[in-house]
């Protein structure tokens, strides 16, 4: 099972994903995937360093499968975290509606 690392950006709480260059992107498509437990541990080490550097807070691993448009979380809760609130209000555009690629 592939895994990625997610966290919240410290200063503004934005949901972000660890990307290949060790930075954090708000697009799950940029997330670097770990194919096994060894790789996953290494990703978490990088993430924990980021936390100590006060860039992000609360990193953890998320199981994903590869969908047409990039990694998709297997668990429902993590899927909601990607999409943003599922409820319909005009104000409630999802957390990732129309965002540009941004690095922390």
């Amino acid at each position, binding site marked *: 099972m592939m895994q990625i690392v997610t966290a919240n950006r410290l*200063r503004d*709480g934005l949901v972000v994903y660890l990307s290949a260059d060790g930075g954090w992107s708000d697009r799950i498509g940029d997330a670097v995937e770990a194919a096994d437990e060894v790789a996953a541990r290494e990703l978490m080490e990088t993430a924990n360093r980021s936390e100590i550097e006060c860039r992000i807070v*609360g990193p953890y691993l998320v199981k994903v499968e590869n969908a047409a448009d990039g990694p998709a979380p297997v668990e*429902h809760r993590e899927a909601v975290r990607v999409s943003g609130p599922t*409820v*319909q*209000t005009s104000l409630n555009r999802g957390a990732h509606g129309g965002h540009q690629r941004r690095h922390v």
Partner: protein
Amino acid sequence: MYIYDEMDQAIVDQRVKQFRGQVARRLNGELTEEEFRPLRLMNGLYLQLHAYMLRVAVPYGVLSSTQMRKLAHIARRYDKGYGHFTTRQNIQFNWPKLEDTPDILAELSDVQMHAIQTSGNCIRNVTADQYAGVAADEIEDPRIYSEIIRQWSTLHPEFSFLPRKFKFAVTGAPHDRAALRVHDVGLRLYENEAGEIGFEVMVGGGQGRTPMLAKTIRPFLARRDLLSYVEAIMRVYNRFGRRDNKYKARIKILVHEIGAEEFTRLVEEEWEHLRGGELDLPLAEVQRMRRFFRPPGYEDLDDPVTWYELKKAENVNFSRWAAANVAAHKQPGYAIANISLKPIGGVPGDATAEQMDAVADLADRYSVGEIRVTHEQNLVLPHLKKADLFDLWRALEAIDLATPNVGFVTDIIACPGLDYCALATARSIPVAQRLSERFADIERQRDIGPLRIKISGCINACGHHHVGHIGILGLEKRGEESYQVTLGGRADENAAIGKIVGPAFTADGIVDAVETVIDTYLDLREEGEEFIDTLERTGHDPFKERLYGAR
């Protein structure tokens, strides 16, 4: 309402400054997240599923129009243009940035508001009857004592690191509109046989994993003894509450494990040392506080029945709204107007910044600038002249705040659930929305009558499902959302914890299941019975049979 003096203002100002320093020390790494977390929680700042969440205190649910406008401004400037009113009479903003929160708190302090102790293992917002001061059945205004408790509990040096959170509720009428029996401490003001006014003190209620009703540990407490007594309760809890297991750390567990009698003995023993001392509440101080909550200058109106009755007879929509949303006021010619934040298909308890501003304007025009927040996630304008109700209703219609459903099946209480909350196991809002749409027809709602549906998205029960007539608990079963139904919960003076009716339903099946329950009631009810009455008379078996088939 209570007006800050220079000391109250200094307390919130120094807190803003202190928090600004703490945020700076967090951002530069001097404070780790583990050290910062309790500090930010004590200022109401959570880290949720998508973002931070800020819970702003609305002390005992009372807001001025100025304060409501400030909340609207914060929603617009620092958030995504809306806020969410909660089951503890507070407001939550779902998208603040950590780096902005010191400024948000500073703006709140400008209008005598704060987010102090809205989270954390400390004493939380004291909630009260939303009709305090105006209810027709009121004996004494619970806001007086709610404010006194609020102050005593704010930055209390001994009780800021309790085993777990701590919630007080206060009422002053025979009808319990604040769910006293599911609070850590519930205080009911009443007049005893000797004609004295005092408190029934209830301790150890709560919901969550282990719902329990509070026990009366002192049937009558004189008002002067209020603070010394609650200090004794808190000290016993702080010393002896469990700290080994987060899920067994509330005071209800302590009361349950040592027994109400032993718990009472410990409290009374501690109290013997405290009573009559520094925490004695002088009558003169109670009088001083009471002045803040004096009724506004009501006009001497001859209950203008004719105009109000005429408009109701004339306009069927107005009459429906009046029937559901208008409550009796103690002053002749006046009424209490409820504003439903449960539009059909909407998110329960949410309000846009525009709606907040509009409510503020309406409060100024019709309600002496005062608004209330209820623990059922609606708003109240407490000082309406009956003669103004029709104009108010028309103004509410224009901003989609005139849903005539207070107390009915579509007046659903729901926590934010998995759409927002990091603790949730299932979504609650979509269930509320679909239920609301299924029962949209107003005449059907009126026929069903009073019915409290409460939905929680996890076992923490922030939606208060344990005390819903129909309670719905969202769980996860093998990766799918799954909804358990409880029946017979009550949050009033006949408080009861609902019982699970049977196996959980799928997300697809839950709305049908609720409809089946309601149809069963309609089939079985006798003349004049409300849902809860029928359920109590017949028991759960007929409902179980209809849901799951005969055994």
